[in-house]
Structures are given as C-alpha cells and as structure tokens.
C-alpha cells in the first residue's frame, strides 16, 4: 500500500495491543525465521515505506537542523574580516566599530564596512554570511517607512520596525519547533510519570489523581494560560518591581502544565492493562524492583500512544505558541515570532506580506508535521478496514 489512508490520523486513535499480539503470533508447524526483527524496527520500516510521511520527516528534520545554523547563515555580523593584514572572526568575538576604523559606537556596521573596503580596494575585505541581515536589526536606511514591501534585496519585505521578514521567519521556525519539542518533552515526561503511577499502583492514588486531572483539564486552556501570562507580562507598578519576566522557559512550563493530562490518560490505561500480563508477574516473582518493572518492562510496551500522538501534540503546541504571540502573551518582545508578525499584519491590513508569509510558514510546517503524524500512526497503529464489494 503506497498511499496510506491519510485521514484516520486525525481522529484520536486508541492503542490497539491486539495488533501487537498479532504480529508475534506464529503459525505452528511453520519453521520460524532465524532471528526475529524487533517490533520497533518493523514499525520504522513501515514508516519509511509511507513515502509522504517519511519525506516530510526528512524535510522537517533537515530544515530544523539547518535552522540551528541561522546565526551563521543569516546575520548582520560578518564571518571573516581582513583588515590591515589581520584576520578577524566577528561571529565568535565581539569587536568595537573603532577596531575597523569605523566611526560608530558599539557594533560595527559590517555591510557598510564591506562596501567601504570594496571602494577603497586596499586589500581589506569582509566576508558576509549568505544573507547579511540579522533578526533584530532595524533596517531604517531603506527608502520609505518601515513595513517595506518585498524587494530583490528583501524578498519577503520587512516588518513594522524594519526588520527583515525572511530572517525572522527562519529564526522563528527554529524557536517554534524548539518550543514545541520542549513542551512535548516536559508534558510527556510528567504525563508518563503520573500515568504510570496511577495505573500501576491504582487504588486511592488512582482515584485522587483522576479527580485532580478532571478538575485541571476542565480549566479552559488558552483562557487560563492568558490569565497566567498576563500576570507575568511586566506591569510597571511604582514601588513594586516585576519579579517574573515572561520568558521562553516560563511559557514552556505553563503550556506543559496544561498538556500532560492528555497522555496521562492513555499511559494510565496502558499500565492498567499491562500490569496483569504474565511477563509482569514473572518480573515480580524474580524480584525485580518496582521502578524497574514500571520503566524497563511495562513502559516499552506502552509507547504506542506516546509516539503516535507526538506529531499532533507538536502541531497543537506550535498553534498555541503562535496564538499566544498573536495576542501578545507569548515570548518576550524582540524574539522572532510568527504570531507576532501576523499580529502586526492585523494592524496594517494593507501590508499583505506581514500576514501571508508567516501564515505560509506556519501552514506548511504544520502540514508537514501532520503528514508525519499520519504516517507514524499508520505504522504504529494500523487499522485495516475490510469491506464487502
């Protein structure tokens, strides 16, 4: 089957261990194969066969890794400067503008320096990154007032502070994805711990935990996050300075605090079921410690929901971050962000590039992740539909 059934991915998929059991069943009398392939590898092979998902995965992975090079590929700081017979590496060391004989305070303007050196033609040169603009650099020397329309020099235009949009989108991609992955990691970590404890120990702990989760998950999600982040938005009150600044990490923790419940339900269910299997009984009899039973024996058998939900959680996380940034409750101000750009676009409706380009970035990223998720789900949790005729 080359074209996997795309849409089941979207509906929440219950983990189906019956399928797992099936793959291990062997027909009596048929000679067994020499070495059995691990189920994880089998599933990975299946994932690779679903081409759309696999290619999306490679593409996103490649782009994400490349985006870590943004500071070196897209920046206003030069790679290498040759000045008066000496080499300088401004990417790694900070130089005063006066170092290169430029009459400026603070950081040198490397683009101007490059032009100047080229004009002088005195053996000095500047090697700029491929795209010589920084993410927080206000390009106020461009003709006209700040939101500049796309041009050859700035293919996606600039935002309302004259910062290059292409650069900000690229940095924003890295930040959004890093953010989503970290939230996923923390939320899943917490969810697995709590879910495992509830499912494994059961009893009163389980009852109490479930009540707590019910209350916690009934809180309106974005609404509460906005209340909390609005607390943390710096409010300047005389005599009482702000204790907490809104930050990347704070936002991650807040979002994770609202997300761990989803996976907890599934892990709890998995542990509840796996607990009664023979291999667990065998482990108990041989005297394996409880944490080892939980995390070395049961957990690897309960990974299906964890993995098959992950891409969709990432979609949700990126969506939440963009929404929060759009509303102004997201990452602190100069951070390159897609949502903030869309928010700017809403205030300048005639400046279409402020809305379309970040939306395009958001949209294509989410689409790729959804493709991955659909393929992962297909590989990990196949559902065959048979139909007469």
């Amino acid at each position: 089957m080359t074209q996997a059934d795309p849409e089941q991915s979207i509906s929440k998929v219950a983990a189906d261990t019956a399928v797992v059991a099936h793959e291990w069943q062997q027909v009596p009398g048929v000679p067994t194969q020499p070495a059995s392939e691990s189920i994880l590898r089998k599933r990975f092979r299946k994932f690779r066969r679903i081409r759309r998902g696999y290619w999306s995965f490679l593409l996103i992975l490649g782009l994400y890794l490349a985006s870590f090079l943004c500071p070196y590929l897209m920046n206003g700081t030069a790679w290498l400067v040759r000045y008066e017979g000496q080499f300088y590496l401004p990417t790694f060391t900070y130089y005063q503008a006066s170092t290169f004989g430029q009459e400026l305070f603070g950081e040198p303007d490397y683009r101007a320096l490059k032009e100047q050196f080229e004009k002088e033609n005195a053996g000095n040169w500047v090697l700029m990154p491929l795209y010589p603009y920084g993410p927080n650099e206000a390009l106020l020397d461009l003709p006209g007032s700040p939101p500049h329309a796309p041009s050859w020099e700035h293919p996606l235009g600039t935002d309302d502070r004259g910062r290059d949009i292409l650069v900000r989108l690229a940095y924003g991609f890295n930040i959004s994805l890093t953010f989503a992955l970290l939230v996923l990691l923390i939320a899943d970590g917490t969810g697995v711990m709590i879910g495992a404890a509830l499912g494994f120990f059961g009893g009163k702990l389980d009852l109490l935990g479930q009540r707590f989760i019910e209350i916690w998950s009934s809180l309106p999600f974005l609404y509460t996050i906005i209340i909390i982040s609005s607390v943390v938005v710096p409010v300047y009150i005389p005599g009482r300075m702000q204790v907490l600044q809104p930050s990347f990490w704070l936002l991650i923790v807040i979002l994770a605090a609202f997300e761990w419940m989803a996976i907890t339900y599934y892990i709890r269910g998995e542990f509840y079921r796996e607990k009664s299997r023979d291999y667990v009984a065998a482990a108990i009899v041989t005297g394996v410690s409880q944490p080892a039973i939980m995390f070395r024996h049961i957990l690897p058998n309960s990974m299906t929901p964890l993995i098959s939900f992950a891409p969709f959680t990432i979609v949700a996380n990126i969506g939440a971050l963009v929404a929060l940034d759009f509303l102004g409750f997201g990452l602190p101000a100069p951070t390159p962000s897609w949502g903030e750009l869309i928010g700017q676009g809403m205030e300048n409706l005639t400046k279409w590039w402020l809305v379309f380009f970040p939306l395009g970035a958001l949209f294509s990223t989410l689409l790729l992740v959804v493709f991955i998720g659909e393929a992962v789900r297909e590989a990990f949790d196949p559902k065959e539909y048979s139909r007469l005729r």
Partner: protein
Amino acid sequence: MATYFIRRLLLVIPTFIGITMAVFLITHFVPGGPVERQLMRMRAAAAGGEAAAMSGGGGRPTVSLPEDAVEEIRRYYGFDKPVHVRYGEWLWNVLHLDLGNSYIYQDPVWDIIKSRFPVSIFLGLTGFLLSYLICVPLGVLKAIRHGSRFDFISSGLVFLGYSVPGWALGTALLVLLGGGSFWSVFPLGGFRPDNWEYLGFFDKVTAQIEHMFLPVICYMVGSFATLTILMKNSLMENLGQDYVRTAFAKGLDERRVIFVHALRNSLIPLATGLGHVFSLILAGSFLIERVFNIDGMGYLGYQSIIQRDYPVALGILVISSLLMLLGNILSDVIYALVDPRIRFK
C-alpha cells in the same frame, strides 16, 4: 443508570468548586489588579495636579497617598479580607445568581454577559449547523468512495483544514477579501453594520450574511477536519461489520444497506458530540472574535482578562465551565439514549 447520572451530577459540584477556586486564587494574587489600578490612577492625578501647581519646580518622583484612602479602596474592591473569605463570599453570591459588578463598567456582570449572548448564539449556531451539514455528507461520501480520486482530493482538503488554525485563516481572508490590498468583498469586521436599524429587511439579510461569511468559515475550519474524519471512519468501521455482510448476503440493495443499516449506527459517535453544543455555541472562540472584531462572549472574556476586570472574567468562567461539565454528562446521556448497548453503572 439513574443513580449513575445522579452521582455524575453530584460530582459536578466539587469539580466546579475546584475550577473556580483555582482561577480565583490566581486572580487574587495577580499584580495590577483593580486596587493597584485605582491607586495608580489616583497617584497620577495627584502627581499631575502638583506638577501643574509647581510648574517645573523639580517634581517629586513619587506621591504617597494617605493610608486610609488606600485602605478604603481595598475595602471597596473587597481586597481587605483574606482570600478564602473573599472566595466564600463570591461563591455564596454566585449561588444566589449574583456574579457581582464589573470593575470597569460598574454594571452587573450578568447583564454584560447577557448582552453578548445573541451575537455568540447567532454565530455559533450558524457555524455549528453548517459544519454538520457539510461534514456529515462529505464523510459519508468519502467512506463510500474510499480510495477513489474524490476521496484522495477531499483528504487533501481535510489535511489543509487541520493544518491551519481557524483564526489564522481568518487573518489571511481579511487581508485578501476584506479590502486591504486585494479585493474588497467583505466588511472588515464587526457583527452588524453601524446603520443596522435603518436597513430594510432584505438589506439586513445581505448585510448580516456579508458580516458573517468569513467568521463562520473560520469557525467551521476548526471542526471540518475532525468531524469529517470521524464520520468517515465511523461509517467505514460499520461497513466492515458482520451485520452489514448479513444485509448484503440476504440480497439488500447497497443503498439500503449503507444508508439505513450502517449509517444509523455510525452516527452514534457524532451524536455524543452534541452534548457540547451549548458550550460551543455560547463560548465561541475569542481568537476568531478578536480577528473579526465581533463583540461576543469570547472577546468579552479576553478583554476582561486584559483589563483585569475579574468579576467579568470569573463570571464567564462560571458559565463556560458549568456548560462544559453539564455538557459532558449530557453527552453520556445522549450516548446511552441512542445506543441501547451502552449501560452506565
């Protein structure tokens, strides 16, 4: 089964208290609340007055207010009591259907919220009905023609719908069709035109449709993907069941098998979603309402948080969380009603 639902109803009480208590605690300890706001206003007024009197005489950096004035403001907003007493009083008032007065507008919270109901219900109901009217037939068609070109193309649409958040689509639509730099087909926002009262009936209808078109599309994008797929998968699953095989085997027409036998059963998962119809319709989406500048419940809640108008924010929380908790139970009731195999204990 009655005892099950009575127990569920009783469990709403502690959950409700838990939810409101959590939010109440947060609002109590938030800096920049009404007391600080009022103090700041008074300080600014005092400082401004003095500065005018001294006219360039250096100006003192801070102006201190008399202690008893501060105390009075605290008392006015109820902040002189410890938090548990405040919460108890608030809860007691809520039980008497009194949500308090807005800090900003000074009107009763209930009146403010009530005034937003028509907008939210109108918008929410339209979006809700339209999305069911589109998604159910589409899902059925996709299931019947599973694997066909139609299925493949519409799946693409579903993917697109799932990948773009409704409010974000709204911003693009506004720029494209709202008269920014492209076409000016639809108004920029708002629920109704300003001259609504003077319009004739026909004009009212067209104006309303013009104003609703884009927001409703954004509402629908949110449920489009999930609802269509739920319908499709549910029908696919039923088509693989033995009773469908039996129906075919005894020689029934394919149409009859699909639309009479299988479809009825596959509507069950969709029916359970109806329990949340009230919270969907009322709560709306503050993101979409904000993008289109519509004064619904969602936008009211958003504004009340920004302005630290906590009685309004808490009032909306009370209504939305009650609707959600009761909606959960209603879903189960519907589930038990439409599916006789389901018995709750």
